[in-house]
């Protein structure tokens, strides 16, 4: 069992949602881990990989592997970025034995936040309190590539004062999809409207998710629609005492 956790906060959290990173650090520290933030970290390379620029993705992935080479346990607030490292790096380095070995060495040490809490730290109740009704949106890559379905829900159910009310299409994509959101902005927007409508029907005061990119999309839609529903990262809910 590791005692030290290295945060990989992702570029999106670093630049746009730093509170999510701080909340994640708070929760992990509260459970007794020593937390460190390797400062040379930037991005996992997924934007380039998903856009077809594998050469560029490889360069950035190699940088990630260098930065996190010595880390025992890497915790990340995004199932999508964690999945990139765990599942797609090996594919990216099919023809580069050294990089592939480094990717295979790091893959079992990277954890998505809710997965880390429930499977590594083996905690569901992290001592949090949140008064109100929330609904949970499943991020696609966390759900389908990382098989994370129950972990965040178990964590939410253990929060004092919180009622989890499922929406009818929790597992349907919010429409983000990286550069898809701007290359096919209109389709992405239509998918988002369907999601927002489902969130609204629950009557929840907040939608919680475990991926900052889904939350950027969903909160952008809620804000545009003028709805008073908050969009929160799981870490933000769990950090609340």
């Amino acid at each position, binding site marked *: 069992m590791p005692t030290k956790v290295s945060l990989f906060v992702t570029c999106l959290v670093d630049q746009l949602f*730093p509170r999510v990173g*701080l909340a994640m650090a708070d929760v992990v520290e509260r459970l007794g881990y020593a937390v460190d933030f390797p400062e040379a970290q930037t991005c996992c390379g997924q934007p380039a990989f*998903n856009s077809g620029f594998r050469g560029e993705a490889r360069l950035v992935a190699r940088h990630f592997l260098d930065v996190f080479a010595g880390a025992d346990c890497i915790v990340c607030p995004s199932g999508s970025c964690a999945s990139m490292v765990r599942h797609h790096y090996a594919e990216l380095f099919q023809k580069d034995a050294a990089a592939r070995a480094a990717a295979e060495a790091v893959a079992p040490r990277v954890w998505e936040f809710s997965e880390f809490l429930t499977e590594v730290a083996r905690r569901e109740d992290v001592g949090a309190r949140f008064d109100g009704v929330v609904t949970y949106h499943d991020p696609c890559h966390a759900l389908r590539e990382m098989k994370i379905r129950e972990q965040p829900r178990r964590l939410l159910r253990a929060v004092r004062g919180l009622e989890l009310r499922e929406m009818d299409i929790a597992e349907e994509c919010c429409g983000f*999809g990286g550069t898809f959101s*701007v290359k*096919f902005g209109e389709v992405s927007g239509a998918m988002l409207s369907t999601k927002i409508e489902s969130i609204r029907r629950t009557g929840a005061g907040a939608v919680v998710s475990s991926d900052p990119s889904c939350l*950027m999309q969903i909160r952008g*839609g809620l804000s545009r629609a003028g709805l008073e529903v908050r969009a929160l990262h799981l870490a933000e809910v769990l950090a609340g005492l």
Partner: protein
Amino acid sequence: MPAAMHGRIHEALLDERLQQALYAATGRLMHKRQSGVAAGQLPDYQELRDHAHLIKRHTMENLDYYLELLTSRVEGRGGRVVWCRDAGDVHAFFEQLVRDRGIRLAVKSKSMTSEEVELNEALDRAGVEAAETDLGEFIIQLAGEKPYHIVAPAMHKTRQQVADLFEQKLGLPREEEIEKQTMIARGVLRKKFLEADLGISGANFLIAESGAVVIVENEGNARLSTSAPRIHVALAGIEKIIPRAADLAVFLSLLGRSATGQPLTSYTSFLSGPRRPGERDGPEEFYVVLLDNGRSRILADRDKRQTLYCIRCGACLNICPVFRKIGGYSYPGTYSGPIGAILTPQMLGLGHEPALPFASSLCGACAEVCPVKIDIPKILLELRSDVKKAERRERRWTAERIGFALWAWLMRHPRLYEMAGAAASVALPAGRDGAWLRALPGPLQAWTEFRDFPPPAARSFRQLWRARRSRG
């Protein structure tokens, strides 16, 4: 960005009635599938998927052997196998057949492969009326359209629209009740079945060991099309082959359930060869037309070969959040939805519609429901990489290419990355009181057209972290 696909998408999204019909119809099929494969219905669903994948893999890796076996078995039973490289070969075969046999009317049961080679148009040029006999196909043929969905070709039509169509094209009194509309179609089609000299079908499976063509359907029109006329031609892609009849235990368990939630379709027909002496029905002549049309090229590509495992159940279309918005006509080519997005670029070439592999949020729902476990998102990613490699070969320096080159450099220089982030946060207009931004210039306009954008954080995580650590 090619305008054609975006234009069709825009049209589909603006059509309020279509949006409702499409989301509801795909949703119904999606839920039927879900209950059809539920543990209570099919406890070994996941094992069947694994098994189906392995059978298809084995068959594709030994396709030459099985195609020759199939050919010898079909011919041993008095049928004929015709190997066609492309649409031209298929057209030539049919042109000669209808000329030699003096055929004027053909009945067709549903076949996406015949759509792929535009067979109806070729028959029309040869002076043959090709009557579609599947109800959905009958409707869209009357409307002069193409199939909207590989399983439900008229999914986009409401019964009111069908009533209009029947009234205008058949000159019959208006009828909005679905059962009565079905009876109208049946009345028209019965005559065609009796008069036609040629029946054309597709094939769901071709069994190599016995030479049988297997067709699943719910309306009985395929059975009539293949047995009433004196000639039957089954047109099938070379990937439709499976080694043994016993393998159907796997595929038939999955196909109906994945398509419509049915444990089995109403009819499953096994057709092997022409009528034999002493038999009372069946065609006098029996042909299996095997179509390549780019399939052997896909087969040669190790990374994308599994595209050929598809059994055309349509489950990936019904669950795809993109298909459920943009619908069948937004896709170029014959096949729509996620399977179309990986099949069309490989059949018609990447240049045909380079945007197509990018028209996906990569949510992965398609792979989760695929009965033969085709890793569609992985193939989309491969195709995206192929598109960008082709751009690079052509030395096309798009804004995106330059952007990603700069980005990759910045991401390997953490200090500069931090400075660039700080600069961007100054350059972007800060929202008042943390409010999200409603309008942004440049490439971010495509974002703010449909949703708000987060205001830049005053300080990045790394800056806040340093401050926190220095406080101890």
